[in-house]
């Protein structure tokens, strides 16, 4: 059976092993079972999965918090409590046994048999390793879901901006299963290493790219208690690990032994080390104003609603936010700074020689890093996990389960951080499909001659501003309050204008973008 005549020797067919066959059978049976249901209710399944995830994460946090406050703190105050000696792996700091847990749960509202079971269910939750595994699982899941759905969303946004629909087929509702399907395709694709490449480095490079962006999630707080490792230097840590990501990209370009890849990697190195400086300096401005490097500490000073957000606290922070956003676009190699993968000049830049699974790792790393950068921007400048309403308004709600849920939805909860980060992510996508790519000399000019001096001035100005506000001068307090109100109003006008334009676009969604713009925009 000769289908094509090829200049190389065809490879002998490789029979599937037992494990592969089992996986294939499993996949086929799951598909056969799920496909009819999924194609019947696609949107409902997607939305309920999102809601179920949120509720699941929240219930875990409530459970851990309850064990902390009700069991562990009660155990510490027991008269005959002795903390356990450090055991082999020192898994728990408290050493509660099921009988201690049973004694501590004084409210016997459940039946005795169930209650006995409950002691054994609660017992593992005291161990750090259990909590770490649960938290790491959640982060790993998020790390996988974000790129998949941001890529789908990017394709939809690109489609809308170019007056087309984007993915519409796979999965039924607006092609929502397009990205998972692409992922499966990428895993099954052949993994090629070019003959002239430096093999070990070529295979290692994608992992060196993806591990730093995974590590950044370890220290990223999603809410006041939703953080895997509360670091006092979380900001520097995240910047550090994201900066180390570039090593993988450079090695990928170098090991490919292909001039397009090397050009891409060189542009990336050049761009990355230039833009790291204005990015770090722009983040120094709020750090100077607040006086801490801990992301939770920075978010804590922004509890007072919209006008207390750091971006509106003084003009230097406002300008620093803009500088940070531009510099982060460049260090993430997003348009208009996406020269390392400029497809019109460099084929695909440093990923030219990659295929399949390794290729997808680069994009996982890139999109996850985009999310981390946006989350940092939201935490440092835009109030973190606090809503535009002052947190003090929720003070009268109490401490019940429902009250906590309401507080999380209305005042401060991870959902707000996700919302803000995803909005900034949308702005990144929007810029990518709107602005043309700029030249390499323009990229470097805008860094070294515009952003760098500007951020230096901002750091100096923020220092002077902070020094002035330590004096508790009445006149200065008035100036500060007035500044907050003016800058906050500018922000309100921006967001209001955005919502108005988006609403107008949604109202006229049946029209083509081109002639809609021609009708509305003056001078077109």
């Amino acid at each position, binding site marked *: 059976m000769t289908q094509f005549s090829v200049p190389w020797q065809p490879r002998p067919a490789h029979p599937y092993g037992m494990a592969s066959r089992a996986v294939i059978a499993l996949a086929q049976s799951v598909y056969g079972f799920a496909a009819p249901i999924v194609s019947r209710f696609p949107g409902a399944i997607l939305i309920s999965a999102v809601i179920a995830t949120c509720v699941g994460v929240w219930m875990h946090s409530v459970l851990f918090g309850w064990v902390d406050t009700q069991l562990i703190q009660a155990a510490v105050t027991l008269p005959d409590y002795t903390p356990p000696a450090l055991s082999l792996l020192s898994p728990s700091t408290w050493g509660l046994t099921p009988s201690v847990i049973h004694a501590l749960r004084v409210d016997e509202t459940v039946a005795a048999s169930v209650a006995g079971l409950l002691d054994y269910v609660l017992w593992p939750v005291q161990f750090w390793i259990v909590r770490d595994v649960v938290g790491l699982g959640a982060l790993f899941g998020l790390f996988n879901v974000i790129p998949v759905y941001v890529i789908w969303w990017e394709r939809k946004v690109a489609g809308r901006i170019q007056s087309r629909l984007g993915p519409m087929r796979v999965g039924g509702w607006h092609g929502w299963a397009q990205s998972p399907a692409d992922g499966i395709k990428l895993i099954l694709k052949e993994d090629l290493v070019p003959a002239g490449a430096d093999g070990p480095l070529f295979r290692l490079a994608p*992992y060196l790219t*993806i591990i730093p962006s995974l590590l950044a999630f370890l220290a990223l707080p999603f809410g006041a208690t939703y953080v895997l490792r509360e670091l*006092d230097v979380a900001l520097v840590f995240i910047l*550090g690990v994201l900066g180390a990501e570039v090593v993988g990209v450079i090695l990928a370009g170098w090991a490919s032994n292909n001039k397009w890849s*090397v050009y891409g990697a060189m542009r990336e190195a050049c761009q*990355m080390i230039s833009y790291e400086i204005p990015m770090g300096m722009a983040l120094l401005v709020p750090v100077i104003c607040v006086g801490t490097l801990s992301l939770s500490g920075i978010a804590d000073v922004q509890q007072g609603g919209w006008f207390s957000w750091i971006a509106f606290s003084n003009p230097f922070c406002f300008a620093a936010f803009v500088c940070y956003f531009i510099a982060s676009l460049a260090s993430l190699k997003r348009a208009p700074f996406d020269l390392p993968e400029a497809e019109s000049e460099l084929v695909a830049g440093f990923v030219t020689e990659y295929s399949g699974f390794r290729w997808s790792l680069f994009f996982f790393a890139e999109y996850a890093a985009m999310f981390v950068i946006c989350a940092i921007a939201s935490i440092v400048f835009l109030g973190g996990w606090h809503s535009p309403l002052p947190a003090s308004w929720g003070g009268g709600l109490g401490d019940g389960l429902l009250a906590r849920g309401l507080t999380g939805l209305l005042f401060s909860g991870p959902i707000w951080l996700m919302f803000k980060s995803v909005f900034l992510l949308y702005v990144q996508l929007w810029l990518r499909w709107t602005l043309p790519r700029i030249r390499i000399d323009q990229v470097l000019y805008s860094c070294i001659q515009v952003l760098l001096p500007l951020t230096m001035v901002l750091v100096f100005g923020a220092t002077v501003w902070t020094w002035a506000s330590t004096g508790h001068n009445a006149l200065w307090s008035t100036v500060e309050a007035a500044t907050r109100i003016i800058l906050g109003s500018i922000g309100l006008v921006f967001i209001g204008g955005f919502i108005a334009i988006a609403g107008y676009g949604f109202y006229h969604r049946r029209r083509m973008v081109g002639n809609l713009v021609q009708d509305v925009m003056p001078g077109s």
Partner: protein
Amino acid sequence: MSIDRVNQLSSTCVRRRFALAPALLVLGVTLLCGTRAMASSGGEVVTTAAEPGSLLEVVLFYAVATMTIVSSVAVCMSKNIVRMALWLFMTLASVSFLYFLLAANFLASIQLVVYAGGTLVLLVFGVMLTNKSPWARYTPGKLELVGAAAVCSVLLVALWLVFLRAEWSRLPGAFAGTSVADLGRSLLSVYVVPFEVAGVLLMIVMVGAAHLARQDK
């Protein structure tokens, strides 16, 4: 390299590619255990290293120390310049991990930012810009070897003397780490002169580098 060899390589690669996923997971879990947030009774969260003396800490220390030593020896032994840079990256990253184990979070993060992220990229960038061949090899001359050996032995003796004279004692409990605020205060009060001297030195180096790099002198 023949086409058969390529085919053979790529098919082994297909089989091996999932083996790296567990390695990734193991790395993540080890890094997790390195620093450990301990909730004190007041609800305040303090970051400390793994409990001193616990098996976990000892295992992590020896693993990371071995990695540091192996990769720094590999920097010297490898001939390919880009491989050298990669091993240097491994060395710097594992030194940063050792700092994390010591609860010196700020120092560890700065190590990542400055050395692993900045200096190393600059180094690789320089290698890429200056080398004509992609397989640039470096073999040290005899004079260089002698010089390096002299410097290394002086350094070794000096370090050995310091280690012999130091009084080693174990900290009583979990070490809470040094706060960044304390570090900043001491840099700008007690150690302000060395700090400023280092700053001026770096400034001079930068001006000199800019002067050397100028096209029209």
